[in-house]
């Protein structure tokens, strides 16, 4: 190998740079071919499998085609791939017309400028902003700007408990944090545990960092969008959550490896744990794993006595339109269709979602009490995750830091509040650097 040839190679590369110049993603090639007769739609995985989603959505899309003559090309994308796919779509402009996003990404995605803002004309076309539940609509984007997404499916965290295990131990469902821990301790016996947590999932961990901090009245971002992760309220909140495994020992240390909610649900359905924290779409998974609907109950995730009554973030899925769609009218029609009462009712059950339409009734379960509990959590005890462009950074940095803290605890170490603060300082610096 000769240095000279490397130099020559480098020179060629340099030439190529100037030659290609900026061929950036200004190109405008929505994959639907402009004729107004087709739309491309990316759906997220809401059902039990990608195929299940397809089966559920296809009849609705047929109906839409009958009504409007517009054919919808559906692709269901798993959560592992969805973010990368959206990124490449945003970057290249090779994008679907309409797509599902996790509503916590809304503000982050809005800041890319790749999505169509819903102005008043657009809202008129889909049936008005007021048709949505207000908390759900709040997740549409940064406050004070036209939102770039509208709510599609509503979700909320609840505390699922095993009725039989509670009854056998002579317990009633907890209403505050101290009760919950006491119950969990009592139920942690004979190889069973009070709790299962998805302690190895950074998104789940980030959500509970937010919820616990919110119970303490602490904000993760200042009004001007700067991260404030290191405040005492945040540190205490995370510490409280970690202590379920560390101090209270009501969580099997093995849960530090649970990198998605599925494994906790499996344990719950198998009767290995008495409680799990999950969004209401866990219902179908619990049943699929062999536990009957009347064998478990749900209450709001309790806050410590005297703290703010926040039990969940406003979770769910939003619907966005890509700005460079060549079929804006069709896309709006489709959004209107998906957020219409009929479609919402039809999809509410199979996807186990809460209604995002004002005044609509929850249909995701036949269990009246459960429906009431979740509707109450969603409408009254939920707070949106920070509506700032760096929200996604919060999830990845703080969530991953918490993964590591759980891992430390699980392998026999201890995590002090000082350790939490140090880790959050690093996370905050990373977010600042990326901003």
């Amino acid at each position, binding site marked *: 190998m000769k240095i000279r040839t490397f130099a020559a190679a480098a020179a060629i590369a340099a030439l190529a740079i100037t030659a290609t110049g900026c061929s950036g993603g200004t190109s405008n090639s929505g994959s639907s071919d402009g004729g107004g007769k087709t739309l491309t739609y990316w759906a997220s995985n809401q059902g039990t*499998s990608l195929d299940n989603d397809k089966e559920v959505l296809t009849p609705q899309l047929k109906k839409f085609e009958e009504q409007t003559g517009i054919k919808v090309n559906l692709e269901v994308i798993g959560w592992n791939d969805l973010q990368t796919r959206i990124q490449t779509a945003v970057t290249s402009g090779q994008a679907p017309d309409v797509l599902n996003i996790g509503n916590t990404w809304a503000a982050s995605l809005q800041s890319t400028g790749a999505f169509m803002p819903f102005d008043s004309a657009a809202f008129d076309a889909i049936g008005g902003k007021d048709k949505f539940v207000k908390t759900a609509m709040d997740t549409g984007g940064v406050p004070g700007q036209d939102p770039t997404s509208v709510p599609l499916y509503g979700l909320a965290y609840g505390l699922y408990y095993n009725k039989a295990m509670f009854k056998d131990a002579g317990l009633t469902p907890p209403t505050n944090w101290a009760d919950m821990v006491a119950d969990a301790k009592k139920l942690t016996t004979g190889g069973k545990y009070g709790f299962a947590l998805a302690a190895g999932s950074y998104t789940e961990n980030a959500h509970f960092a937010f919820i616990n901090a919110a119970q303490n009245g602490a904000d993760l971002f200042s009004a001007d969008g700067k991260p404030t992760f290191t405040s005492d309220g945040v540190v205490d909140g995370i510490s409280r959550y970690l202590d379920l495994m560390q101090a209270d020992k009501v969580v099997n240390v093995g849960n530090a490896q649970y990198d998605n909610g599925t494994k906790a649900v499996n344990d719950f359905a198998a009767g290995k744990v008495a409680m799990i924290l999950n969004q209401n779409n866990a219902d179908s998974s619990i049943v699929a794993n062999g536990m009957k609907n009347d064998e478990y109950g749900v209450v709001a995730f309790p806050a410590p006595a005297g703290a703010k009554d926040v039990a969940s973030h406003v979770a769910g899925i939003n619907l966005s339109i890509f700005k460079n769609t060549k079929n804006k009218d069709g896309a709006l029609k489709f959004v209107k269709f998906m957020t219409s009462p009929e479609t919402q009712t039809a999809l509410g059950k199979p996807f186990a979602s809460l209604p995002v339409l004002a005044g609509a009734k929850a249909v995701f379960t036949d269990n009246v009490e459960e429906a009431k509990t979740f509707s109450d959590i969603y409408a009254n005890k939920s707070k949106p995750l920070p509506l700032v462009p760096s929200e996604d950074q919060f999830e990845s940095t703080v969530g991953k830091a918490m993964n590591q803290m759980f891992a430390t605890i699980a392998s026999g170490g201890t995590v002090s509040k000082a350790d939490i603060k140090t880790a959050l300082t690093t996370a905050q610096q990373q977010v600042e650097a990326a901003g």
Partner: protein
Amino acid sequence: MRETTSAKSFRIVVIAVLTVFTVIPVYVMVISGLKPLKDVQGAFSWWPSTLTIQPYIDMWRTVPLASYFVNSVIVASAATVLSLIIAIFASYAISRYNFRGRSLFSNTVLATQMLPGVLFLLPLFLIFVNINTNFGVQLVGTRIGLIITYLTFSLPFSIWMLAGYFDGIPRELDEAAKVDGCGPMRALIQVILPAARPGLVAVAIYSFMTSWGEVLFASVMTTDANRTLAVGLQLYSTQTNVYWNQIMAASVVVSIPIVIGFLLLQKNFVAGLTAGAVK
């Protein structure tokens, strides 16, 4: 020549240790594919509570494995054939001609091999999109895009292996053919290629294996319709369950054709691989 005792015990120890190290994961893969779901969710055991082939039946339903299989076969085969053809021409030029830029070419090609794939994942995606906009050829989300990507991944190593192999074929052979009135292309096809068959097999195996196993680009460049096995296997972790037994069964199924092919042809592979280095 008699072997000393120490050499013999060295041999036995090495073979024993490496056999255990090699075999255990393979055994776990095979046996776990024959377990019912509850076995793989509980503590590990070396033998199933009941031996079942159910995972091998269910796995086709949990994810559309068959269609991913077809995609993988098409993509890997096409990438292999194209890469082979292109490599044959390039290696022939490098091996039999002296021309300006010869070493520049080889060195640039090999320098690209040091690139972290992450660096050009996004740019490549952009280029594909630009090709689509300017020339109307759809490359993203099609098999063609993936084929083109993979064929270039294996191209540099293939060119190197083949050039080494061609060098080992006596020049007198094709010189004689040329004296007989063959053009350079006929000399290549009629003389060199038959002589280099083991090398060609080696290159084909290498290309095929590269394409069959690639994950990163496949996860970004494919859609539902053309997803390959490498990405498809991840889908066994569904919303309701992680089907470890089906994952293992599917791993066995996607491995069998390539392992058998490789083991049958390994002698060629060794020969091709080392042609350049061992002289």
